[in-house]
């Protein structure tokens, strides 16, 4: 850590990890309600549990991005942050807003647009926090060295904040409501967040592999170009059956197919950089998470996304467990794992230690990734059966669900592994242990 102000990232990462724990515990509870539906049904019904699960996810990912920006921008810009105090004020607003939202949900006060259920005052809080953040980061970048990494990172963060405006726009016409809703949801995860992801990945590669900045930055521009060229019109894959014109079927199918390219490019980029890099960076856990994130993102977003994106397929799979399978692996690979890569890289330095607890951290990678992969598989099987029975044969929804109990049990098991992995990760970051590399007995050649 070269600059004092990078330290604010630490507070962001701590809050993010706490919410991560809440998110996966909420998910596990939701998964349990699928297995045993009477659980808490009068006290905290499924819809509230689900809101807590998805909202906690989105907020902690954003906190991770903010923290990552506060960590890497000073190094890239070669100067201290514009204002450390503003960064803490921003965090305080977000924490108050988050707690406020949780309490509101539990007492039954919430909006009714999926993922955007926050009460209006919380939405405003998020807007104010975003503005503070943008001012703080932009002032730092403008005053310092400009690099492709900060360029792309800033552009992503500015655009995603601008898109947040659509969280306030809720037309009475349901089809219009749905169309503009996707401006936040799709244009976040399949456009602007990809810029943030690419910038963070580029930074990590630059630091850990020692490859030339020129090479990294050129790759980055190519990656983000393919992301926006495909992702913007790719929004059409959600404009198929909500009252929008028929031409979106072809526009959506074609451009969202191209959306696979940036995810493939990010995976290739990560592997090529590691392969070409001469540096042998000691933080093996951060390297594992970086490679893992870009690989799982390719499968979750690229492969599982393509699986149901052509309109001839989506006509049958739309809104089934196939969607849930894809949503989980895509979010996990692209944004959860990339955040955890950044945490793994930055935490040892923020805490002034050398890489620590590498083994536990790496074990948590395999546990979480294995759990998410298994969950994705079982939900894909459940969704395939659901699609066939409900959409082709025409059996009634609830009758079909009754046939899927086994898959939901396995999903719960997979979820338990993910929760264990997440707790292990947090433990490995917080409970610092010395890297025990006791000198072993001098190897003696065989007899």
């Amino acid at each position, binding site marked *: 850590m070269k600059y004092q102000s990078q330290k604010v990232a630490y507070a962001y990462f701590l809050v993010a990890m706490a919410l991560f724990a809440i998110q996966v515990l909420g998910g596990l509870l939701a998964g349990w*309600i*699928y297995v*045993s*539906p*009477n659980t808490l*049904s*009068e006290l905290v*019904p*499924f*819809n*509230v549990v*689900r*809101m807590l699960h998805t909202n906690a996810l989105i907020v902690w990912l954003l906190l991770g991005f903010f923290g990552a920006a506060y960590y890497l921008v000073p190094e890239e810009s070669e100067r201290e942050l514009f204002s450390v105090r503003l960064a803490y004020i921003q965090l305080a607003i977000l924490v108050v807003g988050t707690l406020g939202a949780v309490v509101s949900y539990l007492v039954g006060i*919430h*909006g*009714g*647009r*999926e993922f955007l*259920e926050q009460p209006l005052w919380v939405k405003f809080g998020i807007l104010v926090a975003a503005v503070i953040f943008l001012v703080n980061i932009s002032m730092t970048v403008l005053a310092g060295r400009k690099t*492709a990494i900060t360029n792309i990172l800033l552009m992503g963060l500015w655009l995603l904040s601008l898109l947040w405006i659509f969280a306030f726009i809720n037309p*009475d*016409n*349901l*089809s*219009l*409501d*749905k*169309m503009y809703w996707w401006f936040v949801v799709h244009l976040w995860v399949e456009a602007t967040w990809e810029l943030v992801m690419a910038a963070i990945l580029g930074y990590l590669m630059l630091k850990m592999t020692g490859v030339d900045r020129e090479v990294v930055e*050129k790759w980055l*521009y*190519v990656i983000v*170009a393919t992301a*926006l*060229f495909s992702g*913007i*019109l790719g*929004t059409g894959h*959600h404009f*198929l*059956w*909500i*009252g*929008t*014109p028929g031409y*979106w*079927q072809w*526009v959506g199918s074609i451009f969202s197919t191209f959306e696979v390219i940036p995810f493939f490019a990010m995976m290739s980029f990560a592997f090529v950089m590691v392969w070409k890099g001469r540096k042998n960076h000691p933080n093996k856990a951060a390297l594992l998470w970086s490679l893992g994130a870009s690989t799982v993102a390719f499968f979750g977003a690229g492969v599982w996304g393509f699986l149901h994106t052509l309109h001839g397929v989506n*006509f*049958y799979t*739309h*809104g*089934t467990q196939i*969607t849930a399978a894809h949503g989980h692996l895509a979010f996990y690979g692209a944004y959860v794992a990339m955040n955890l890569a950044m945490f793994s890289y930055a935490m040892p330095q923020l805490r002034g230690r050398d890489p620590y607890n590498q083994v536990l951290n790496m074990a948590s990678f395999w546990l979480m990734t294995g759990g998410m992969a298994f969950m994705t598989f079982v939900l894909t099987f459940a969704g395939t059966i659901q699609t066939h029975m*409900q*959409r082709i044969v*025409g*059996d009634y*929804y*609830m009758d079909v*669900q009754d046939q899927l109990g086994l898959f939901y049990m396995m999903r719960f098991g997979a979820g338990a592994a993910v929760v264990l992995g997440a707790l292990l990760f947090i433990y490995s970051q917080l409970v610092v242990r010395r890297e025990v590399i006791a000198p072993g007995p001098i190897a003696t050649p065989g007899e």
Partner: protein
Amino acid sequence: MSEILTKSRARNVFYGGSLFFVVVFVAMTVHSHRYIVETSTAGMPLTDEVRLGKHVWERASCINCHTLHGEGAYFAPEVGNVMTRWGVLDDPEGAYEMLDGWMQAQPSGIEGRRQMPHFDITEEEMRGLAEFLRWADQTDTQDWPPNDAG
């Protein structure tokens, strides 16, 4: 390749191309907006009752269990075509009565069956909700869902 594709060239392609796609996207959205208002949802007027129903739908956060036009949660049945399934698409009074009867019977309390909560909804709101669901059902969704099961 490295001579043709320099960093600054890659950057310019990125900015220029993105701007191009944003412009195309905005133009298509404007057209889609008008298409929705004038064509696909024009089958039934967007009355105050429908508006009220939409607010009730949101207040109860139905979307976090059900899908509506295939979007939402996957815990409970599709409701974008529920009025068709109940055979009351063109019958406001029947729609209200079916919906009211259903909502009052929740939660079912049946062991091992997914539970729908009880909501405090006035009669006026319930009528609005029924109208909202009828309104949604008459939207031209390019013939989705494939069948009445939703």
